[in-house]
């Protein structure tokens, strides 16, 4: 975990840095509010890495003080959708009235100076715990409980973002709709828990089989939607076939369950203006064809070229 210190007092900064690095955290040291803001803006977790997650800000600093910086982080974070930064404000013992102002400005915690190591360590642990709870709560709103995959809304959001990005780069996006075969039959013959087990296993295998930068979500009861960046039609067919083979035989607690999956594939390659809606509708049509062809197969539909 990466921690930022914004503190103009050299001794306080040195004491903080000494302990924090000893406890194994990564550290970014700044001497005033403006430096701290620049560091936070350039290392905020938007590039795929976690970035700075905890900020320890001194109350009184040159240029931009702790409270103003705190407000800036909160208002900017909200408008830019940045990851939450846990803020600990530092204040002098005889400035306790500042604490209320600090907390009102969006700080999560405070420490009065001079502080001791045990107090600092405890407060950092509290911060870590709060951040992990925050992440869990966030995850619950975007993930599917059973399969732990992205939920329908989130995977569609990924698809829209990907189409937007890829149309600017003139790269195709692949979409695969994977539909469990005979899930209704399995549920009625062996019970819902068997069906759930198969779904969760299929989700795990599909997720392990896709490329690192592909996304997969649960689209419907027995459907998974896969978004494959920069994936043209030929590559798409290969990936779908690899997925089909991977889930053809899912190890099951029940005997002899027919657990195959049918795949409907479509690439935006022929129509860079394809919308999320038209691609998913085309993938559905392809799944239907796969079912008609006897299930456990992958069918690709190529949208008509738009001139």
């Amino acid at each position, binding site marked *: 975990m990466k921690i930022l210190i914004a503190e103009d007092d*050299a001794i306080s900064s040195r*004491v903080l840095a000494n302990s924090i690095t000893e406890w194994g955290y990564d550290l970014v040291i700044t001497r005033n509010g403006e430096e701290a803001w620049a560091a936070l803006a350039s290392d905020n977790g938007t590039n795929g890495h976690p970035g700075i997650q905890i900020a320890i800000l001194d109350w009184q600093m040159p240029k931009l003080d702790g409270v103003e910086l705190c407000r800036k982080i909160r208002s900017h974070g909200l408008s830019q959708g940045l990851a939450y930064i846990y803020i600990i404000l530092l204040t002098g013992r*005889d400035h306790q009235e500042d604490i209320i102002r600090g907390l009102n400005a969006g700080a999560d915690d405070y420490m009065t100076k001079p502080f001791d190591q045990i107090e600092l360590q405890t407060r950092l642990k509290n911060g870590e715990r709060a951040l992990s709870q925050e992440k869990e709560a966030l995850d619950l709103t975007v993930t599917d409980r059973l399969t732990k995959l992205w939920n329908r809304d989130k995977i569609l959001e990924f698809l829209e973002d990907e189409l937007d990005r890829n149309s600017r780069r003139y790269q195709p996006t692949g979409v695969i709709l994977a539909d469990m075969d005979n899930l209704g039959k399995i549920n009625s013959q062996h019970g819902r828990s068997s069906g759930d087990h198969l779904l969760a296993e299929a989700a795990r295998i599909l997720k392990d089989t896709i490329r690192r930068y592909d996304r997969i979500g649960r689209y419907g009861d027995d459907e998974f939607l896969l978004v494959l960046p920069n994936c043209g039609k030929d590559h798409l067919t290969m990936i779908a076939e690899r997925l089909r083979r991977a889930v053809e035989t899912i190890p099951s607690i029940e005997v002899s369950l027919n657990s195959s999956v049918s795949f409907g594939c479509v690439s935006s390659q022929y129509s860079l203006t394809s919308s999320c809606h038209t691609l998913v509708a085309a993938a559905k049509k392809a799944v239907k064809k796969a079912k008609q062809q006897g299930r456990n197969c992958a069918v690709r539909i190529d949208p008509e070229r738009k001139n």
Partner: protein
Amino acid sequence: MFPENDIIDFASVLERIGGDKEFLNELIQIYMEDFDSTYNSLVQAVAAQDFTAIQELGHSLKGSSANLSLIQLREKAYLVETAGGEYNLELAQQGTSGLKTEYERFKAYIADRD
């Protein structure tokens, strides 16, 4: 054990930094390197009767002195900070000269200890 005195409370500062005496020596070095320039700025601020700067510099010295449990230096810095906030020139001058006296005592104490 270090002798008790009103210059530095070794027990409390060592407790805060996990008893690391070498680290304490490093912190004392940092304090000494910073003190002169902050003090010079303070003298200039007092001469110019710049009370905002007096308050800020007093606050800054108070913080670093408290970090090292420098009892009298923290007291004098607090006087300076208060003087700045109250636009009290006489108190600011008194605090500033008190800072110098206490700093010299602190330096002599550390030199003796070495």
